[in-house]
Protein backbone atom coordinates (compact mmCIF):
# COMPACT_ATOMS: atom_id res chain seq x y z
CA UNK A 1 0.00 0.00 0.00
CA UNK A 2 1.50 3.34 -0.90
CA UNK A 3 1.07 6.62 0.86
CA UNK A 4 -1.63 7.79 -1.53
CA UNK A 5 -3.78 4.85 -0.63
CA UNK A 6 -3.33 5.39 3.07
CA UNK A 7 -4.24 9.03 2.72
CA UNK A 8 -7.14 8.17 0.49
CA UNK A 9 -8.47 5.75 3.07
CA UNK A 10 -8.47 8.57 5.64
CA UNK A 11 -10.64 10.69 3.40
CA UNK A 12 -13.96 11.32 5.15
CA UNK A 13 -15.75 11.01 1.79
CA UNK A 14 -15.05 7.56 0.47
CA UNK A 15 -14.48 7.45 -3.27
CA UNK A 16 -17.50 6.35 -5.18
CA UNK A 17 -16.09 2.92 -5.87
CA UNK A 18 -16.25 1.77 -2.27
CA UNK A 19 -19.57 3.35 -1.36
CA UNK A 20 -22.86 1.85 -2.46
CA UNK A 21 -22.69 1.97 -6.22
CA UNK A 22 -25.52 4.38 -6.74
CA UNK A 23 -25.24 5.79 -10.19
CA UNK A 24 -26.53 9.35 -10.37
CA UNK A 25 -29.40 9.87 -12.84
CA UNK A 26 -27.28 12.24 -14.98
CA UNK A 27 -24.72 9.50 -15.51
CA UNK A 28 -27.48 7.04 -16.31
CA UNK A 29 -28.73 9.34 -19.04
CA UNK A 30 -25.25 9.48 -20.52
CA UNK A 31 -25.01 5.70 -20.43
CA UNK A 32 -28.43 5.30 -22.02
CA UNK A 33 -27.64 7.85 -24.74
CA UNK A 34 -24.36 6.12 -25.50
CA UNK A 35 -26.02 2.71 -25.68
CA UNK A 36 -28.74 4.01 -28.00
CA UNK A 37 -26.11 5.58 -30.23
CA UNK A 38 -23.95 2.46 -30.46
CA UNK A 39 -26.98 0.27 -31.11
CA UNK A 40 -28.36 2.54 -33.81
CA UNK A 41 -24.96 2.72 -35.51
CA UNK A 42 -24.67 -1.06 -35.50
CA UNK A 43 -27.98 -2.37 -36.82
CA UNK A 44 -29.26 -2.69 -40.39
CA UNK A 45 -32.73 -1.41 -39.47
CA UNK A 46 -34.13 1.57 -37.60
CA UNK A 47 -34.60 0.90 -33.88
CA UNK A 48 -37.42 2.27 -31.79
CA UNK A 49 -37.27 5.88 -30.66
CA UNK A 50 -36.87 5.75 -26.88
CA UNK A 51 -40.32 6.34 -25.42
CA UNK A 52 -39.13 7.25 -21.93
CA UNK A 53 -38.52 10.90 -22.75
CA UNK A 54 -34.75 10.43 -22.73
CA UNK A 55 -34.09 12.71 -25.66
CA UNK A 56 -36.48 15.41 -24.53
CA UNK A 57 -34.69 15.42 -21.19
CA UNK A 58 -31.26 15.48 -22.80
CA UNK A 59 -32.17 18.29 -25.16
CA UNK A 60 -33.40 20.38 -22.23
CA UNK A 61 -30.21 19.73 -20.34
CA UNK A 62 -28.05 20.66 -23.29
CA UNK A 63 -30.00 23.87 -23.76
CA UNK A 64 -29.54 24.81 -20.12
CA UNK A 65 -25.85 23.99 -20.26
CA UNK A 66 -25.40 26.22 -23.31
CA UNK A 67 -27.05 29.08 -21.40
CA UNK A 68 -24.72 28.42 -18.49
CA UNK A 69 -21.69 28.54 -20.77
CA UNK A 70 -22.87 31.89 -22.12
CA UNK A 71 -23.24 33.25 -18.58
CA UNK A 72 -19.80 32.03 -17.60
CA UNK A 73 -18.03 33.33 -20.68
CA UNK A 74 -17.78 36.88 -19.35
CA UNK A 75 -15.95 35.76 -16.21
CA UNK A 76 -12.19 36.03 -16.65
CA UNK A 77 -11.15 34.40 -13.38
CA UNK A 78 -8.69 31.65 -14.45
CA UNK A 79 -10.25 29.14 -12.06
CA UNK A 80 -13.76 29.36 -13.47
CA UNK A 81 -12.12 29.61 -16.85
CA UNK A 82 -10.76 26.10 -16.61
CA UNK A 83 -14.11 24.81 -15.38
CA UNK A 84 -15.59 26.46 -18.46
CA UNK A 85 -13.19 24.60 -20.74
CA UNK A 86 -14.21 21.33 -19.09
CA UNK A 87 -17.90 22.15 -19.35
CA UNK A 88 -17.58 23.11 -23.00
CA UNK A 89 -15.59 20.01 -23.85
CA UNK A 90 -18.21 17.82 -22.22
CA UNK A 91 -21.02 19.75 -23.90
CA UNK A 92 -19.45 19.11 -27.30
CA UNK A 93 -19.22 15.41 -26.52
CA UNK A 94 -22.95 15.26 -25.71
CA UNK A 95 -23.82 17.27 -28.79
CA UNK A 96 -21.76 14.89 -30.90
CA UNK A 97 -23.60 11.88 -29.50
CA UNK A 98 -27.04 13.39 -30.03
CA UNK A 99 -26.21 14.60 -33.54
CA UNK A 100 -24.62 11.38 -34.64
CA UNK A 101 -27.57 9.41 -33.27
CA UNK A 102 -30.14 11.56 -35.05
CA UNK A 103 -28.22 11.66 -38.31
CA UNK A 104 -27.74 7.92 -38.25
CA UNK A 105 -31.52 7.50 -37.91
CA UNK A 106 -32.18 9.98 -40.70
CA UNK A 107 -29.76 8.00 -42.85
CA UNK A 108 -31.73 4.80 -42.27
CA UNK A 109 -35.06 6.52 -42.85
CA UNK A 110 -33.81 8.13 -46.09
CA UNK A 111 -32.55 4.83 -47.37
CA UNK A 112 -35.83 2.99 -46.89
CA UNK A 113 -38.37 5.81 -46.73
CA UNK A 114 -41.39 3.94 -48.04
CA UNK A 115 -40.56 0.87 -46.01
CA UNK A 116 -40.84 2.80 -42.76
CA UNK A 117 -43.85 4.96 -43.59
CA UNK A 118 -45.94 2.26 -45.27
CA UNK A 119 -46.24 0.02 -42.25
CA UNK A 120 -47.95 0.90 -38.98
CA UNK A 121 -45.63 -1.08 -36.74
CA UNK A 122 -42.54 0.37 -38.36
CA UNK A 123 -43.96 3.87 -38.37
CA UNK A 124 -44.19 3.87 -34.59
CA UNK A 125 -40.44 3.42 -34.37
CA UNK A 126 -40.03 6.98 -35.54
CA UNK A 127 -40.40 10.05 -33.36
CA UNK A 128 -43.20 12.42 -34.47
CA UNK A 129 -40.63 14.75 -36.01
CA UNK A 130 -38.95 11.90 -37.87
CA UNK A 131 -42.26 10.70 -39.25
CA UNK A 132 -43.19 14.19 -40.44
CA UNK A 133 -39.76 14.45 -42.05
CA UNK A 134 -40.10 11.06 -43.75
CA UNK A 135 -43.53 11.86 -45.20
CA UNK A 136 -42.45 15.26 -46.42
CA UNK A 137 -39.27 13.83 -47.93
CA UNK A 138 -41.20 11.12 -49.76
CA UNK A 139 -43.68 13.69 -51.05
CA UNK A 140 -40.96 16.00 -52.37
CA UNK A 141 -39.08 13.12 -53.94
CA UNK A 142 -42.11 11.63 -55.66
CA UNK A 143 -43.28 15.00 -56.97
CA UNK A 144 -39.80 15.69 -58.25
CA UNK A 145 -39.78 12.37 -60.09
CA UNK A 146 -43.24 13.09 -61.51
CA UNK A 147 -42.16 16.51 -62.73
CA UNK A 148 -38.91 15.35 -64.25
CA UNK A 149 -39.77 12.00 -65.85
CA UNK A 150 -42.39 9.89 -64.12
CA UNK A 151 -45.19 12.21 -65.32
CA UNK A 152 -44.65 11.14 -68.90
CA UNK A 153 -45.31 7.49 -68.03
CA UNK A 154 -48.78 5.93 -68.24
CA UNK A 155 -50.68 6.61 -64.98
CA UNK A 156 -50.51 2.96 -63.96
CA UNK A 157 -46.73 3.19 -63.90
CA UNK A 158 -46.39 6.35 -61.87
CA UNK A 159 -46.48 4.71 -58.45
CA UNK A 160 -43.37 3.96 -56.45
CA UNK A 161 -44.90 1.17 -54.39
CA UNK A 162 -45.75 -1.33 -57.09
CA UNK A 163 -45.47 -5.01 -56.30
CA UNK A 164 -46.15 -6.45 -59.77
CA UNK A 165 -44.08 -9.39 -60.95
CA UNK A 166 -43.34 -10.52 -57.40
CA UNK A 167 -40.80 -7.76 -56.96
CA UNK A 168 -41.71 -5.01 -54.56
CA UNK A 169 -40.52 -1.53 -55.43
CA UNK A 170 -40.30 -0.81 -51.73
CA UNK A 171 -36.74 -1.53 -50.68
CA UNK A 172 -36.27 -2.81 -47.18
CA UNK A 173 -33.23 -3.44 -45.01
CA UNK A 174 -31.70 -6.93 -44.94
CA UNK A 175 -32.61 -8.13 -41.46
CA UNK A 176 -30.29 -11.13 -41.75
CA UNK A 177 -27.23 -8.89 -42.04
CA UNK A 178 -24.40 -9.77 -39.71
CA UNK A 179 -24.08 -7.78 -36.48
CA UNK A 180 -21.66 -7.94 -33.55
CA UNK A 181 -22.97 -8.34 -30.01
CA UNK A 182 -21.57 -8.75 -26.54
CA UNK A 183 -23.36 -11.11 -24.19
CA UNK A 184 -24.21 -9.42 -20.91
CA UNK A 185 -25.00 -12.72 -19.23
CA UNK A 186 -24.62 -16.40 -19.96
CA UNK A 187 -27.26 -17.17 -22.54
CA UNK A 188 -28.44 -19.74 -25.01
CA UNK A 189 -28.52 -18.23 -28.48
CA UNK A 190 -30.71 -19.71 -31.17
CA UNK A 191 -28.79 -19.25 -34.37
CA UNK A 192 -29.73 -19.87 -37.97
CA UNK A 193 -27.00 -21.02 -40.31
CA UNK A 194 -26.74 -22.35 -43.83
CA UNK A 195 -26.02 -25.96 -42.92
CA UNK A 196 -27.26 -26.08 -39.34
CA UNK A 197 -29.59 -24.25 -37.04
CA UNK A 198 -28.45 -24.63 -33.51
CA UNK A 199 -28.23 -23.36 -30.02
CA UNK A 200 -25.00 -21.73 -28.99
CA UNK A 201 -24.22 -21.63 -25.30
CA UNK A 202 -22.67 -18.23 -24.83
CA UNK A 203 -20.71 -16.94 -21.87
CA UNK A 204 -21.02 -13.50 -20.37
CA UNK A 205 -18.57 -11.22 -22.16
CA UNK A 206 -18.49 -13.22 -25.41
CA UNK A 207 -18.38 -11.18 -28.59
CA UNK A 208 -20.42 -12.95 -31.25
CA UNK A 209 -21.05 -12.30 -34.94
CA UNK A 210 -24.49 -13.46 -36.01
CA UNK A 211 -27.55 -12.47 -37.99
CA UNK A 212 -29.43 -9.45 -36.72
CA UNK A 213 -32.63 -11.50 -36.93
CA UNK A 214 -31.11 -13.94 -34.42
CA UNK A 215 -29.58 -11.23 -32.23
CA UNK A 216 -32.60 -8.97 -32.01
CA UNK A 217 -34.44 -10.91 -29.31
CA UNK A 218 -31.36 -11.11 -27.11
CA UNK A 219 -30.73 -7.41 -27.43
CA UNK A 220 -34.35 -6.55 -26.68
CA UNK A 221 -34.34 -8.77 -23.59
CA UNK A 222 -31.17 -7.08 -22.38
CA UNK A 223 -29.16 -10.31 -22.54
CA UNK A 224 -26.81 -8.80 -25.08
CA UNK A 225 -25.81 -5.45 -26.47
CA UNK A 226 -24.58 -4.34 -29.87
CA UNK A 227 -20.93 -3.45 -30.17
Amino acid sequence: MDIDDILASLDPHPPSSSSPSLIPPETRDLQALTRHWVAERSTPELLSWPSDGLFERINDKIKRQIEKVEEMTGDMDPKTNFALIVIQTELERWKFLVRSYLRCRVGKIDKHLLHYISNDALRTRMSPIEEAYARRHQLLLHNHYLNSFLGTFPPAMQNLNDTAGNISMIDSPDLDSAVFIRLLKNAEIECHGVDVDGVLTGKEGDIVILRWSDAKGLVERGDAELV
Partner: protein
Amino acid sequence: MSYYDIDAILTDAEKIPCTFQIDVPDLGYLDNQPGHTLKAGSRVALPIWLAEMLAIANTGAVDMDDPSQSSKSFITFDLPSALGNDVVQALKADPRSVPLRDQSAHFYALATHMMELSEEPELSAVLRKTFVSRAAEIALHARKVGGGGSSYHGRDGGGAGGKGKGKATKEDNASNLGVGGAGEEFLRGLDEWERKLFRSAHDGTKASKEWMENVKKR
Protein backbone atom coordinates in the same frame (compact mmCIF):
# COMPACT_ATOMS: atom_id res chain seq x y z
CA MET B 1 -33.19 -8.72 -54.05
CA SER B 2 -33.45 -5.04 -54.06
CA TYR B 3 -35.53 -3.32 -56.74
CA TYR B 4 -32.99 -0.63 -57.59
CA ASP B 5 -29.86 -2.76 -57.26
CA ILE B 6 -27.81 -2.22 -60.42
CA ASP B 7 -25.71 -5.31 -59.82
CA ALA B 8 -28.83 -7.45 -59.59
CA ILE B 9 -30.14 -5.96 -62.84
CA LEU B 10 -26.82 -6.58 -64.58
CA THR B 11 -26.74 -10.13 -63.26
CA ASP B 12 -30.20 -10.72 -64.70
CA ALA B 13 -28.85 -9.76 -68.11
CA GLU B 14 -26.29 -12.58 -68.12
CA LYS B 15 -27.12 -15.20 -70.71
CA ILE B 16 -27.64 -18.86 -69.94
CA PRO B 17 -28.02 -21.81 -72.34
CA CYS B 18 -31.66 -22.69 -72.97
CA THR B 19 -33.37 -25.39 -75.03
CA PHE B 20 -36.74 -24.68 -76.60
CA GLN B 21 -39.32 -27.35 -75.87
CA ILE B 22 -41.80 -26.27 -78.53
CA ASP B 23 -41.73 -24.88 -82.07
CA VAL B 24 -42.08 -21.12 -82.16
CA PRO B 25 -43.04 -19.59 -85.53
CA ASP B 26 -40.91 -16.69 -86.80
CA LEU B 27 -38.45 -16.82 -83.93
CA GLY B 28 -35.77 -18.49 -86.05
CA TYR B 29 -33.68 -15.34 -86.10
CA LEU B 30 -32.58 -16.17 -82.58
CA ASP B 31 -30.82 -19.19 -84.07
CA ASN B 32 -29.43 -17.43 -87.14
CA GLN B 33 -32.31 -18.57 -89.36
CA PRO B 34 -34.38 -15.46 -89.90
CA GLY B 35 -37.88 -16.04 -91.21
CA HIS B 36 -38.00 -19.64 -90.12
CA THR B 37 -39.71 -21.38 -87.27
CA LEU B 38 -37.56 -21.96 -84.20
CA LYS B 39 -37.72 -25.71 -83.81
CA ALA B 40 -38.19 -27.49 -80.52
CA GLY B 41 -34.81 -28.70 -79.35
CA SER B 42 -32.93 -25.63 -80.58
CA ARG B 43 -30.34 -24.38 -78.15
CA VAL B 44 -30.28 -20.62 -77.69
CA ALA B 45 -28.61 -18.39 -75.09
CA LEU B 46 -31.15 -16.16 -73.36
CA PRO B 47 -30.76 -13.58 -70.58
CA ILE B 48 -31.74 -14.89 -67.16
CA TRP B 49 -34.72 -12.59 -66.72
CA LEU B 50 -36.30 -13.97 -69.90
CA ALA B 51 -35.22 -17.59 -69.42
CA GLU B 52 -36.62 -17.55 -65.89
CA MET B 53 -40.07 -16.48 -67.05
CA LEU B 54 -40.16 -18.87 -69.97
CA ALA B 55 -39.03 -21.78 -67.84
CA ILE B 56 -41.58 -21.16 -65.11
CA ALA B 57 -44.51 -20.26 -67.36
CA ASN B 58 -46.08 -22.99 -69.43
CA THR B 59 -47.86 -22.88 -72.73
CA GLY B 60 -51.18 -23.48 -71.08
CA ALA B 61 -52.28 -25.11 -74.31
CA VAL B 62 -54.28 -28.29 -74.27
CA ASP B 63 -53.25 -30.30 -77.27
CA MET B 64 -55.91 -32.98 -77.91
CA ASP B 65 -53.88 -34.76 -80.55
CA ASP B 66 -50.73 -35.07 -78.51
CA PRO B 67 -51.26 -34.84 -74.74
CA SER B 68 -47.49 -34.77 -74.18
CA GLN B 69 -47.46 -31.36 -75.84
CA SER B 70 -49.89 -29.77 -73.41
CA SER B 71 -48.79 -27.49 -70.59
CA LYS B 72 -45.14 -27.81 -71.31
CA SER B 73 -42.57 -25.25 -70.30
CA PHE B 74 -41.45 -23.14 -73.20
CA ILE B 75 -37.83 -23.89 -72.44
CA THR B 76 -35.49 -25.78 -70.19
CA PHE B 77 -32.15 -24.30 -69.17
CA ASP B 78 -28.71 -25.44 -68.08
CA LEU B 79 -26.08 -23.87 -65.89
CA PRO B 80 -23.99 -21.31 -67.76
CA SER B 81 -20.42 -22.29 -68.58
CA ALA B 82 -19.22 -19.96 -65.81
CA LEU B 83 -20.68 -22.49 -63.36
CA GLY B 84 -19.87 -25.52 -65.48
CA ASN B 85 -18.05 -28.61 -64.39
CA ASP B 86 -14.61 -27.36 -65.51
CA VAL B 87 -14.84 -24.30 -63.32
CA VAL B 88 -16.20 -26.23 -60.34
CA GLN B 89 -13.41 -28.80 -60.59
CA ALA B 90 -10.79 -26.06 -60.82
CA LEU B 91 -12.27 -24.34 -57.76
CA LYS B 92 -12.22 -27.59 -55.84
CA ALA B 93 -8.55 -28.07 -56.68
CA ASP B 94 -7.39 -24.55 -55.84
CA PRO B 95 -9.93 -21.77 -55.31
CA ARG B 96 -7.26 -19.08 -55.35
CA SER B 97 -5.94 -19.84 -58.81
CA VAL B 98 -9.19 -19.29 -60.73
CA PRO B 99 -9.79 -15.77 -62.07
CA LEU B 100 -13.53 -15.64 -61.37
CA ARG B 101 -13.93 -12.35 -63.16
CA ASP B 102 -13.11 -14.07 -66.46
CA GLN B 103 -16.16 -16.28 -65.89
CA SER B 104 -18.44 -13.44 -64.93
CA ALA B 105 -18.02 -10.04 -63.29
CA HIS B 106 -21.02 -11.02 -61.16
CA PHE B 107 -19.89 -14.57 -60.56
CA TYR B 108 -21.41 -15.18 -57.11
CA ALA B 109 -24.56 -13.20 -57.85
CA LEU B 110 -25.06 -15.27 -60.99
CA ALA B 111 -24.45 -18.50 -59.10
CA THR B 112 -26.81 -17.46 -56.31
CA HIS B 113 -29.52 -16.66 -58.81
CA MET B 114 -29.05 -19.95 -60.66
CA MET B 115 -29.22 -21.89 -57.41
CA GLU B 116 -32.55 -20.22 -56.68
CA LEU B 117 -33.86 -21.56 -59.97
CA SER B 118 -32.57 -25.10 -59.59
CA GLU B 119 -31.14 -26.96 -56.64
CA GLU B 120 -27.39 -27.38 -56.81
CA PRO B 121 -26.26 -28.53 -53.36
CA GLU B 122 -22.74 -29.41 -54.47
CA LEU B 123 -22.23 -26.10 -56.24
CA SER B 124 -23.44 -24.27 -53.14
CA ALA B 125 -20.92 -26.04 -50.91
CA VAL B 126 -18.00 -25.56 -53.31
CA LEU B 127 -18.76 -21.88 -53.78
CA ARG B 128 -19.03 -21.17 -50.08
CA LYS B 129 -15.67 -22.78 -49.52
CA THR B 130 -14.27 -20.83 -52.47
CA PHE B 131 -15.61 -17.54 -51.16
CA VAL B 132 -14.15 -18.02 -47.68
CA SER B 133 -10.72 -19.20 -48.75
CA ARG B 134 -10.38 -16.50 -51.37
CA ALA B 135 -11.53 -13.95 -48.78
CA ALA B 136 -8.55 -14.79 -46.59
CA GLU B 137 -6.27 -14.09 -49.55
CA ILE B 138 -8.16 -10.88 -50.29
CA ALA B 139 -7.69 -9.70 -46.72
CA LEU B 140 -3.98 -10.33 -46.95
CA HIS B 141 -3.59 -8.21 -50.08
CA ALA B 142 -5.91 -5.50 -48.80
CA ARG B 143 -3.83 -5.05 -45.67
CA LYS B 144 -0.65 -4.70 -47.68
CA VAL B 145 -2.14 -2.06 -49.93
CA GLY B 146 -4.03 -0.39 -47.11
CA GLY B 147 -1.18 0.33 -44.79
CA GLY B 148 1.85 -1.87 -44.57
CA GLY B 149 1.07 -5.07 -42.70
CA SER B 150 -0.94 -4.14 -39.67
CA SER B 151 -2.00 -0.65 -38.75
CA TYR B 152 0.51 -0.58 -35.96
CA HIS B 153 3.34 -0.60 -38.43
CA GLY B 154 4.59 2.51 -40.11
CA ARG B 155 5.04 4.57 -37.00
CA ASP B 156 8.14 5.00 -35.00
CA GLY B 157 8.52 3.23 -31.70
CA GLY B 158 8.62 6.65 -30.08
CA GLY B 159 11.52 5.85 -27.82
CA ALA B 160 14.07 3.25 -26.86
CA GLY B 161 13.91 0.07 -28.86
CA GLY B 162 11.61 1.45 -31.53
CA LYS B 163 14.15 2.82 -33.95
CA GLY B 164 15.40 -0.28 -35.67
CA LYS B 165 11.90 -1.52 -36.30
CA GLY B 166 10.74 1.83 -37.58
CA LYS B 167 13.26 1.71 -40.36
CA ALA B 168 12.43 -1.82 -41.41
CA THR B 169 8.79 -0.84 -41.59
CA LYS B 170 9.45 1.91 -44.08
CA GLU B 171 11.10 -0.60 -46.38
CA ASP B 172 8.14 -2.94 -45.99
CA ASN B 173 5.85 -0.16 -47.04
CA ALA B 174 7.89 0.64 -50.09
CA SER B 175 7.87 -2.92 -51.32
CA ASN B 176 4.13 -3.11 -50.79
CA LEU B 177 3.25 -0.06 -52.82
CA GLY B 178 2.92 -2.20 -55.89
CA VAL B 179 0.98 -5.34 -55.11
CA GLY B 180 3.44 -7.42 -57.09
CA GLY B 181 2.99 -9.87 -59.94
CA ALA B 182 1.05 -12.82 -58.52
CA GLY B 183 -1.01 -10.58 -56.23
CA GLU B 184 -1.98 -8.31 -59.05
CA GLU B 185 -3.10 -11.27 -61.11
CA PHE B 186 -5.22 -12.56 -58.24
CA LEU B 187 -6.84 -9.18 -57.60
CA ARG B 188 -7.65 -8.77 -61.28
CA GLY B 189 -9.64 -12.00 -61.11
CA LEU B 190 -11.96 -10.85 -58.29
CA ASP B 191 -15.69 -10.73 -58.99
CA GLU B 192 -17.87 -7.84 -57.78
CA TRP B 193 -18.65 -9.31 -54.34
CA GLU B 194 -14.98 -9.96 -53.79
CA ARG B 195 -14.03 -6.47 -54.88
CA LYS B 196 -16.41 -5.11 -52.27
CA LEU B 197 -14.76 -7.33 -49.69
CA PHE B 198 -11.34 -6.13 -50.79
CA ARG B 199 -12.47 -2.54 -50.44
CA SER B 200 -13.86 -3.00 -46.93
CA ALA B 201 -10.71 -4.77 -45.72
CA HIS B 202 -8.57 -2.07 -47.30
CA ASP B 203 -10.64 0.78 -45.87
CA GLY B 204 -10.59 -0.79 -42.40
CA THR B 205 -6.81 -1.01 -42.38
CA LYS B 206 -6.45 2.48 -43.76
CA ALA B 207 -8.83 3.99 -41.21
CA SER B 208 -6.90 2.34 -38.37
CA LYS B 209 -3.68 3.75 -39.67
CA GLU B 210 -5.17 7.21 -39.94
CA TRP B 211 -6.59 6.99 -36.44
CA MET B 212 -3.19 5.94 -35.11
CA GLU B 213 -1.57 8.94 -36.74
CA ASN B 214 -4.24 11.29 -35.42
CA VAL B 215 -3.81 10.29 -31.78
CA LYS B 216 -0.57 12.23 -31.75
CA LYS B 217 -2.04 15.37 -33.20
CA ARG B 218 -4.78 15.78 -30.64
